[in-house]
């Protein structure tokens, strides 16, 4: 394995850029985006289109006594009012969830969270549809809600899922990983055991484009066209076929430009189904587009993990084992999106980047009267929670031992020669050079100098009782992406392999068709560059087609940073197949033996006589021309591949955050953030940096301001962007990024995926910095988000629960 250190990236892409292959080029899709010419869901307009709107529950838990829709139906512009009772007659009131459960499309018996779908109005225009919602009269019998996940399993807690036969509690599952006995044995011989209760509160991916759909059921040929904000168009189509009984070939799902997904657009929402039902009933196309509040209160949230961690070590700081007990709040329906066999996602990769023999975790999932979800927001199937757990525990251990957290990490990091590494919870990390990445981050930060500055500031604070408190936080993460090997990983029975089809036209231009779906990640550029790198066809000559089930191969879509690891591999292999076929054609053209040819990006030539050569473009024309091809070789130049990844890929990185806290107000300012990422070779370094920048901003947001809390009545307290705060450039420092390059041994291009690395890795760095700054006050932990109020209260040893409404206590 090699680790190549490259010079720090420059800020600007080279406007010339390389014409062929990998490198820093402008994004092809930006030509339309920067002109405002993107085509998002709400831009889809079809003649005769009607507009739908959802009536939502104002309460968190209640029995539906009666729904009176007569006044709404009498509205002159209303075409249909659909209730749960109507859906029941169509057998569509409930649908399977992504996790062995069901979700309600429209509530029939009870409402189970604020914002749950209760009725759907279809009207001539959006305004009338919304007006008509106010004309629907729903009578509820209010029930006590379960708001605090920690009380969900208490005897006597209200039972939320009365729809499940004999259900007498709010328990969903217990799940374990690792070896409890072996871990205990390590704890028994430890010098030090540190425990901490950590909360990763509920947050929301909050894509700037909310969710929506336009359903057009053609009453004549029975074909449904569904434009939909989906990250996984093919998976959606199959689910509609299975659930609604529509024949799959009569469903076309089109995912147009997507304005951010972050996992929020993986699942199937009731609104999508309702637009389809609305179109079937009215025989007209029906658009449904949720507003901001609806997106925040009802669609897939992320995290909500209440974690109890224990870490055991020797007095010299050698980690021996880790134990974790998790209470997972899944909301009212278990609808987390992850490979079927893993109810806690990939949380059991929590052993992190360190070398120790044993670990064990137990995860208990519970129902609460909150919106369903849990796996979203660039979390890599809960690697976010796992990294937060281990990185906070390692810092906690350092604090307990009085050891520098960088030194403690260096002491325990996996060494390059340990790869492929088999972790105590069953993962096989593909490749890595962790100490090099951490060292690079420490060097970039000027770590020793920062610690000196901190010591001075602390002394000054102690002398005056005022001024800034400085903190330095480190996080080292191992990501787990590119799901995944189909024999282990499926979603609703669909194996997680992805397809790619590549066709080179006679003139040497190409079209590549993908099963994954970009949401802003720049696939139209990255995938063109992959094909270009392998075939030598210029990036500009390659059209990327995705997001349309009628025009792309089957695959499971884009989430979990899987596009490049899975579809990227498919694209590389399809490209190689094209190059191989071009070789035969080139040999025929030059009347040479294929074995005598050699490839140099874009050209086959006869070894030893470089003047005898043909370009890939020339082979393309010949492949479509009158040239007589050898026996068994078909004309044209195309290839396809369905890629079943042999393993996941494991990007990693070392992050350092420097924060200053105003001791008088508790306000945290992130002064510097150093991020060294290793995602293998970088196809387009600018796009990779963009992904890292975005994820770092996510991390600052989650660590400092983002949270979806609920009051006692189960009311969502993060229902607008005035309440759910997203960070802006003003809260973000100028990111200092670095890279090491450790290729994945099993990926055809060595690349690992980077879409979620920074979101996964950055929150613990910020929180570690905050706790480090507050250490002189005896602080060992703080709950995210570290708002000024929470920091001030924590300084006084009076933290409040950030997942509940703030009270006076």
């Amino acid at each position, binding site marked *: 394995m090699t680790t190549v250190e490259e010079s720090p990236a420059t800020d600007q892409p080279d406007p010339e850029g390389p014409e062929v292959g990998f490198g820093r080029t402008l994004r092809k899709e930006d030509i339309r985006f920067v002109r405002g010419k993107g085509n998002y869901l*709400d831009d889809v307009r079809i003649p005769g289109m009607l507009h739908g709107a959802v009536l939502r529950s104002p309460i968190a838990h209640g029995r539906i006594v009666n729904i009176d829709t007569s006044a709404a139906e009498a509205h002159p512009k209303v075409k249909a009012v659909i209730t749960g009772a109507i859906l029941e007659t169509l057998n569509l009131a409930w649908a399977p969830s992504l996790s062995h459960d069901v979700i309600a499309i429209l509530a029939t018996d009870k409402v189970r969270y604020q914002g749950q779908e209760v009725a759907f109005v279809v009207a001539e225009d*959006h*305004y009338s549809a*919304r*007006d008509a919602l*106010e004309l629907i009269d729903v009578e509820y019998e209010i029930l006590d809600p379960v708001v605090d996940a920690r009380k969900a399993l208490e005897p006597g807690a209200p039972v939320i899922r009365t729809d499940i036969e004999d259900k007498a509690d709010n328990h969903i599952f217990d799940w374990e990983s690792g070896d409890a006995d072996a871990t205990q044995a390590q704890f028994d011989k430890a010098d030090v055991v540190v425990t901490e209760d950590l909360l990763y509160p509920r947050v929301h991916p909050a894509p700037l484009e909310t969710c929506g759909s336009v359903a057009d059921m053609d009453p004549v040929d029975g074909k449904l066209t569904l434009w939909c904000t989906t990250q996984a168009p093919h998976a959606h189509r199959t689910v509609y076929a299975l659930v609604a009984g529509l024949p799959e070939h009569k469903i076309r799902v089109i995912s147009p430009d997507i304005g951010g997904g972050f996992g929020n657009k993986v699942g199937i929402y009731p609104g999508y189904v309702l637009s389809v039902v609305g179109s079937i009933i009215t025989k007209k196309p029906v658009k449904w*587009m949720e*507003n*901001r*509040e609806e997106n925040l209160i009802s669609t897939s949230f992320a995290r909500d993990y209440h974690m109890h961690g224990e870490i055991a070590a020797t007095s010299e700081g050698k980690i021996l084992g880790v134990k974790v007990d998790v209470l997972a709040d899944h909301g009212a329906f278990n609808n987390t999106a992850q490979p079927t066999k893993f109810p806690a996602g990939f949380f059991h990769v929590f052993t992190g980047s360190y070398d120790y023999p044993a670990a064990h975790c137990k995860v208990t999932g519970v129902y609460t009267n909150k919106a369903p979800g849990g796996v979203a927001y660039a979390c890599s199937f809960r690697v976010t929670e796992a990294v937060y757990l281990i990185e906070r525990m390692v810092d906690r251990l350092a604090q307990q031992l009085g050891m520098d957290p960088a030194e403690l990490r260096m002491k325990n990091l996996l060494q390059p020669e340990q790869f492929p590494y088999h972790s105590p919870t069953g993962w096989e990390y593909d490749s890595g050079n962790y100490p090099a990445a951490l060292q690079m981050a420490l060097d970039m930060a000027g770590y020793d100098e920062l610690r000196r500055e901190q010591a001075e500031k602390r002394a000054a604070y102690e002398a005056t009782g005022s001024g800034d408190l400085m903190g330095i936080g480190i996080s080292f993460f191992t990501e787990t992406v590119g799901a995944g090997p189909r024999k282990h990983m499926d979603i609703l029975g669909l194996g997680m392999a992805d397809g790619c089809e590549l066709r080179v036209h006679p003139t040497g231009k190409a079209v590549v068709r993908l099963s994954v779906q970009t949401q802003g990640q720049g696939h139209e550029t990255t995938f063109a560059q992959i094909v270009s790198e392998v075939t030598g066809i210029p990036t500009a000559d390659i059209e990327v087609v995705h997001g349309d089930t009628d025009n792309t191969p089957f695959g499971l879509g884009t989430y979990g940073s899987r596009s490049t690891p899975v579809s990227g591999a498919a694209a590389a292999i399809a490209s190689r197949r094209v190059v191989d076929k071009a070789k035969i054609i080139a040999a025929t053209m030059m009347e040479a033996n294929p074995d005598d040819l050699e490839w140099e990006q874009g050209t086959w030539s006869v070894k030893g006589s470089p003047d005898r050569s043909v370009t890939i473009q020339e082979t393309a024309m010949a492949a479509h021309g009158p040239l007589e091809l050898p026996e068994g070789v078909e004309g044209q130049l195309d290839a396809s591949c369905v890629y079943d990844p042999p393993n996941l890929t494991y990007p990693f990185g070392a992050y350092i955050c420097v924060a200053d806290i105003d001791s*008088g*107000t*508790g*306000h945290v300012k992130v002064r510097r953030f150093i991020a060294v990422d290793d995602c293998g070779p970088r196809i387009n370094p600018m796009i990779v940096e963009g992904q890292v920048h975005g994820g770092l901003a996510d991390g600052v947001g989650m660590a400092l*301001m983002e949270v979806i*809390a609920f009051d006692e009545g189960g009311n969502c*307290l993060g229902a*607008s962007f*005035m*309440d759910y*705060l997203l*960070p*802006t450039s*003003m*809260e973000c420092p100028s990111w200092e990024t670095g890279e090491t390059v450790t290729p994945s041994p099993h990926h055809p291009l060595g690349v690992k995926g980077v879409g979620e690395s920074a979101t996964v890795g950055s929150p613990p760095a910020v929180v570690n910095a905050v706790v480090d700054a507050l250490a002189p006050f005896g602080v060992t932990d703080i709950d995210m988000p570290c*708002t*000024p*109020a929470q920091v*001030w*209260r924590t300084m006084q040893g009076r933290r*409040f629960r950030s997942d509940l*409404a*703030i*009270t*006076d206590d």
Partner: protein
Amino acid sequence: MQVPAPFVYERATSVQDALALLAKHGPDARLVAGGHSLLPMMKLRFADPAALIDINSIDGLDQISVADGIMTIGAMVTHAQLLASDVVAQHFPMLTEAERVIADPVVRNKGTVGGSLCQADPAEDLSAALGALRASVTTIGSGGSRSIPVRELHDGPYQTVLDENEMVTEVTVPLPSGSSSSAYEKLERRVGDWAIAASGVSVSVADGVISEIGIGLAAVEAPNMVAADAEDAARGQVPSAELIERIGELAAEATDPNTDQRGPADYKRHLAGELTKRALRRALTNAGALTNEGAL
């Protein structure tokens, strides 16, 4: 897209026209200025006015001028105008500082001084700042014109003492005398957010003592959004570190904050004191009344 309930829209061409339209549409009609408080509430369907009377086309309400020791700010002057004004910065640094942290440029380009004051939001920064500066609003209504001190304009959250058919046309702010300055301190959870707490302090110093002081507080439920007891305690006093501490404590005592997702009441009360001390210290320093700042 969040959409409001149906309403009638009218565009007023003069103050008298606006008053006539208000009378015509009755008690459920509302004036709309920048719309940045009213329209969001309508889109969330928290507000449901039957008619909107748009006052953006009325001439002459968007001027800032100084005459006879008084600055006059038209009701339709936008936040952006106030922020950009040199004459405002020269006389009332507090207003410039407050404007810098009110909302974001998009809101500041449309939101108006009149709308801010009449919204009567307890967290509105200009209500605190103009209250500290002892500004008054001039109104025109069916009963003619009157002047109302900003400190007396609000009648509880989101309520003003204005009659149904009365509108604010301008704000008058007396220019300070002697050595004076002012400062505004606001803590927000994120840029563009409303205040967790904010404090604006204006001071005039004569003969080595504080001759006049105004302390405005936003978002902490101080009566009339000012700290009157703290003002009384400071007037006539020699500026000192101890005085600043004491005034901060009194400002905190003037508050009765609500506990909400911005923070618990005890924290907000602490902030009211802390931010008042900071604003007072800076105002005194800039007024030349505190030279040994380092010692404070």
